[in-house]
């Protein structure tokens, strides 16, 4: 068991709490840097997808996990980012400027959708974002002069001021840099007063308001930041796939994103990454196991849906804190070895009330 002896106020908000953090995260970083030489091209592409989804997950985590704003339309922000990037890149803009525009436009759209968020809460915000998702999907399909309609749109390789990032390795490093940047930004945000205000709003709106937090401003800010991150992820997604069409940004994608952060663990930055790993590796795992199952089950087309549904139900029922929560429990068990008690992570019960009656 490790005891941290605090000698400085700064230690409370340090990103790395102790030497162990520094060591293990450095190892992880080195592994990620060496990945192009360690893995085959196919697995590198999967790793790139994990990073992209993790960025989107961080965005969604900020809104759902840290501010308590329920969003069923994040695929729409992903789509706004992807289409902005595609259109601007094809118009010849360099990658960073196009990325900034994609993030900015997503954030602006997020602000607009966030407006009802100021007045409604809980499930009604989910409805608003759901409606918004349908609208955006339809706009992508109908605005053919810009988006290419249902036929989709091709996108050129990213262009970093004359330096073409055509290869898989170069793009992997680009994604890695952006993912690390986004993670650090989120971590930094969460230890700042703004981030604390978000968490306070999640835990209780009334007490947050009593503490002088401007609910409307912080909720909108959170939603806009979340949308901006989703937009960045969308831009990367567009570059990775090199082809986007409206049906990649439908309701199922939004639900996949939600599933990702719930499985990863709501309210933890690790959760976004663990969830992304889950979401990307699950289809592969199913494909691997398929051959060993009886043909009636293994070859059935609905298998993936059933597995996703089962995993989601199992996590909500048995491990509401997700994969990261499971890890926390194992770690606590090991750290306090003979003294782990069953009730250590017991949650307080909250009984359901109608959201209409504030």
């Amino acid at each position, binding site marked *: 068991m490790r005891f941290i002896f605090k000698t400085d106020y700064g230690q409370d908000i340090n990103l790395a709490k102790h030497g162990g953090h520094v060591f293990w995260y450095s190892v992880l970083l080195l592994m990620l840097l060496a990945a192009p030489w360690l893995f085959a091209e196919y697995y590198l592409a999967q790793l790139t997808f994990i990073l992209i989804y993790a960025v989107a997950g961080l965005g969604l985590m900020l809104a759902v996990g840290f501010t308590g704003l329920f969003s069923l339309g994040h695929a729409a922000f992903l789509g706004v980012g992807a289409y902005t990037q595609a259109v601007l890149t094809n118009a010849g803009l360099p990658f960073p400027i196009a990325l900034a525009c994609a993030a900015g436009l997503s954030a602006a759209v997020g602000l607009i959708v966030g407006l009802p968020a100021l007045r409604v809460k809980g499930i009604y915000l989910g409805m608003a974002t759901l409606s918004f998702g349908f609208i955006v999907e339809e706009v992508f399909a109908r605005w053919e002069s810009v988006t290419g309609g249902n036929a989709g749109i091709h996108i050129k390789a990213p262009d970093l001021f004359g330096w073409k990032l055509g290869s898989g390795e170069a793009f992997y490093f680009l994604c890695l840099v952006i993912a690390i940047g986004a993670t650090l930004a989120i971590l930094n945000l969460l230890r700042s007063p703004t981030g604390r205000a978000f968490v306070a709003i999640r835990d209780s709106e009334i007490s947050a308001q009593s503490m002088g937090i401007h609910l409307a401003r912080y909720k909108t800010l959170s939603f806009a930041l979340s949308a901006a991150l989703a937009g960045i992820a969308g831009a990367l997604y567009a570059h990775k796939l090199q082809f986007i069409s409206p049906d990649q940004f439908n309701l199922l994608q939004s639900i996949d994103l939600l599933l990702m952060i719930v499985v990863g663990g709501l309210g933890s930055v690790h959760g976004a990454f663990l969830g992304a790993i889950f979401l990307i590796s699950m289809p592969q795992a199913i494909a691997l196991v398929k051959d060993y199952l009886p043909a009636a089950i293994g070859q059935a087309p609905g298998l993936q849906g*059933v597995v996703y549904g089962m995993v989601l139900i199992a996590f909500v*029922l048995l491990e509401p804190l997700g994969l990261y929560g499971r890890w926390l429990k194992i770690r606590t068990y090991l750290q306090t070895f003979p003294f782990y008690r069953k009730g250590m992570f017991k949650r307080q019960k909250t009984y*359901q009330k109608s959201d209409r009656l504030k």
Partner: protein
Amino acid sequence: MSFAQGELMMLGAFGGLASMAMLGFPFWLAVLSSIAGMALFGVLLERLVIRPILGQPAFSIVMLTIGVGYMARGLITMIPGIGTETHTLPVPYKDMIWKIGGDVNAQGTLILNVEQMAVIGSTAVLCLMLFALFKYSKLGIAMQASSQNQLAAYYMGIPVKRLNGLVWGLAAAVAAIAGLLLAPITYVHANMGFIGLKAFPAAVAGGFGSLPGAIVGGLIIGTVESLSGFYLPDGFKDIAPYVVVLIMLMVKPNGLFGEKLRKKV
């Protein structure tokens, strides 16, 4: 709050189909049995998955129902030979026409499609029944109470757990009726559950928990949808309901007939 409603609808339609095609039930028996079966399924579902997470935030229930929806869709698709195809539900009133006002070819004849009349008629009857249930019966009022504040309802001696089971049974039965009504129009297939999502905006527009609100909301949505399909360019028809919902949430966040109430600390 359930996101599996559309899937329950789909299961109901498939249930009707199965009991008619495989067990050879006559139409009415098949309808009744699939409604009853779905009600039972709803109660079971509540007992197995929803009840263990009683006392946790609404978000968990939403995710749980999404998971149930995924599973239901996947399982139906997995049934070999049935799941991936589109079916028609044979109904006795298919392609029948009521003529009011004499000759078919004469001017001023009102021709009504029985299929659509059946939908309208049964919806109206269902709405009235539900309205009566929630307005006048002890059970309905208890359901309303527990939806507004579970803990308070519990303190007043309402058996919230048992009630929740009944609510889920009722919801599943209603979904099955909706599925059976929809089946002749849209055909039966594994993804018909997505149509159920269209119902959400209507419910929001009227305000959850207010039955007249939901009906008026549904009427508004339907009217806006068909009018915008007629007057506005192509494509607006599909998004108009959602635009209405967004505006509604911004302007009247408490719903059409929602009451303005504030929690006092």
